């Protein structure tokens, strides 16, 4: 479904700030895989997500989605295949537009936009049933401007908008990190529900080790631009936080700087 082959990226090349962001990344996702990604700050997690979404292009290496090479495809063309939820709840929705208009924009993701009405009668019913799944009562506030919603509600809406057109790949970039614990809990639950329902191939970056262990069927750990640990379906169900910590020490020969990771911000 998704293949990353030999992806390399250097930031600020030929300046004193030169930094190897991604160092020969290889990753292969089968259809329906749900991979969680952990790693400290600057490990290259977000850079990798941006490589897949097309916000950044690799210096060399290839990105393949559903057998089509998309390495050179600009972000807006690639996003036909990709649903995304950002860390910032403000980033995934248009604040001055209504809930139904936001949904209509998301609905046109994989069709060519024309002069059809954005919110027709048939679509409105579909939007309504989709919103009901969130259980937040948003289906009764169709014409509310999204800017009036709380952060948690906006993130739930973003999640719905990213998933309800059944994208080939779903990218979640620390999408619960900016929310308070109870809201984060809600979004985590919705993530699980929506991914399972759509059987979506998913990549999720998180700082929260427990969340990384609870969700998904595979887990990878990144450090200094490399994938240093990959846990597959067979081992994932029995994985614990101490396991991960000791694995890291074994590989890197140093203790993991993990206050933030442990406390799960």
């Amino acid at each position, binding site marked *: 479904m998704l293949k990353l082959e030999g992806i390399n990226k250097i930031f600020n090349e030929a300046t004193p700030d030169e930094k190897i962001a991604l160092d020969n990344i290889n990753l292969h996702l089968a259809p329906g895989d749900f991979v969680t990604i952990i790693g400290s700050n600057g490990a290259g997690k977000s850079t990798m997500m941006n490589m897949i979404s097309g916000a950044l292009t690799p210096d060399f290496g290839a990105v393949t989605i559903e057998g089509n090479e998309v390495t050179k495809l600009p972000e807006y063309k690639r996003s036909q295949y990709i649903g995304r939820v950002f860390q910032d709840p403000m980033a995934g929705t248009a604040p001055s*537009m209504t809930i139904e208009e936001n949904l209509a924009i998301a609905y046109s993701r994989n069709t060519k936009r024309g002069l059809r009405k954005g919110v027709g009668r048939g679509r409105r019913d579909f939007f309504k049933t989709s919103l009901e799944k969130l259980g937040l009562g948003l289906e009764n506030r169709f014409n509310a401007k999204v800017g009036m919603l709380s952060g948690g509600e906006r993130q739930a809406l973003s999640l719905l908008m990213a998933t309800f057109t059944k994208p080939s790949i779903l990218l979640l970039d620390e999408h619960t990190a900016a929310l308070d614990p109870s809201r984060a809990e809600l979004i985590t639950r919705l993530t699980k529900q929506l991914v399972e329902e759509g059987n979506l191939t998913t990549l999720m970056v998180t700082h929260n080790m427990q969340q990384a262990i609870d969700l998904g069927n595979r887990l990878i750990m990144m450090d200094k631009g490399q994938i240093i640990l990959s846990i597959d379906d067979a081992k994932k169900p029995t994985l614990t936080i101490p396991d991960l910590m000791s694995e890291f020490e074994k590989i890197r020969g140093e203790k993991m700087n993990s206050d933030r990771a442990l406390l799960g911000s």
Partner: protein
Amino acid sequence: MFTAMFGSVEQGIIYAIMALGVYLTFRVLDFPDLTVDGSFVTGAATAAMMIALGYHPILATLMAIVAGFIAGCMTGLLHTKGKINPLLSGILMMIALYSINLRIMGLSAENAIVKPNIPLMNADTIFSQFQSFWSNLGVDDALENFIKNSLGFQTAPNTWGTIFVVLIITLIIKFIADWFLKTEVGLAIRATGDNKRMIRSFSANTDGLIVLGLGLSNALVAFSGALIAQYSKFADANMGIGMIVIGLASVIIGEAIFGTKTIFRTTLAVVAGAIIYRIIYAIALRIDWLDTSDMKLITAIIVVLALVIPQLVDKRREKLRKEKRRNERLDQQRELLRGGDHLA
């Protein structure tokens, strides 16, 4: 007075089309587009040139719209492909258009390459054509009788044909704009002005949408220019100076008075704002010690006031609210203290 105001309303309705164009860039796309000063004249120059050469006024007006669309797209390309700052892209295009407009007007004369203006004194325009159809209907006579006899005014407008036709045109444009902004493409353009990152993640080409939005906006501006040239029977290279500020004034005045709750309401507010601006303009011109050339200054002051007064009102309201709250809390605390004395 009535007749003078009547002319202002007629012009205001034509300028409303330009204001809708400014609304499309300034508010919807969040792109302060200064091309307007140039593209307004481009519309006027193209229409006047073609009419002077004997083309049908409707064809001339359509060509003016196309010319404005191209000018707007150029600004969009400067910004998206050339990575030039939005304001600078507009200024560059505005300056470039000044020369281009002189050349366009130059096409109307055999012995000149450039011309600074084209008079259309006896030429056929959209308005003169409509007028011949209108006078056969006999509406003017009926209304004139009504105003003079029933309302008691001494003078009545010569004809209601012009205001009728411009009102129809402007309302059609308004309704098309309302419809367009709710289509899939329209929604994508609005989202581009609202949250570029979001709309890119839903497979919309923001560069293309910005170019399209600027093109449509300047098509409207040029349309308005073409109608003004036919209305006032001349096109002039300098008729666009300050047009962007007039457009902004219309948008801001309209929004301040009528609100922005829905798109339908906002576009209506913009149209009304353009008419109100023209009326203010006409009133200001009747003040003895003001000169016509002071109008640009007055326009600037109107825009500044329309931008600043709402802020001051908000601040004042906030201050009063805080003060009230503080007094309430002080009262509460005093109450508590008194209670404390009792206990002691």
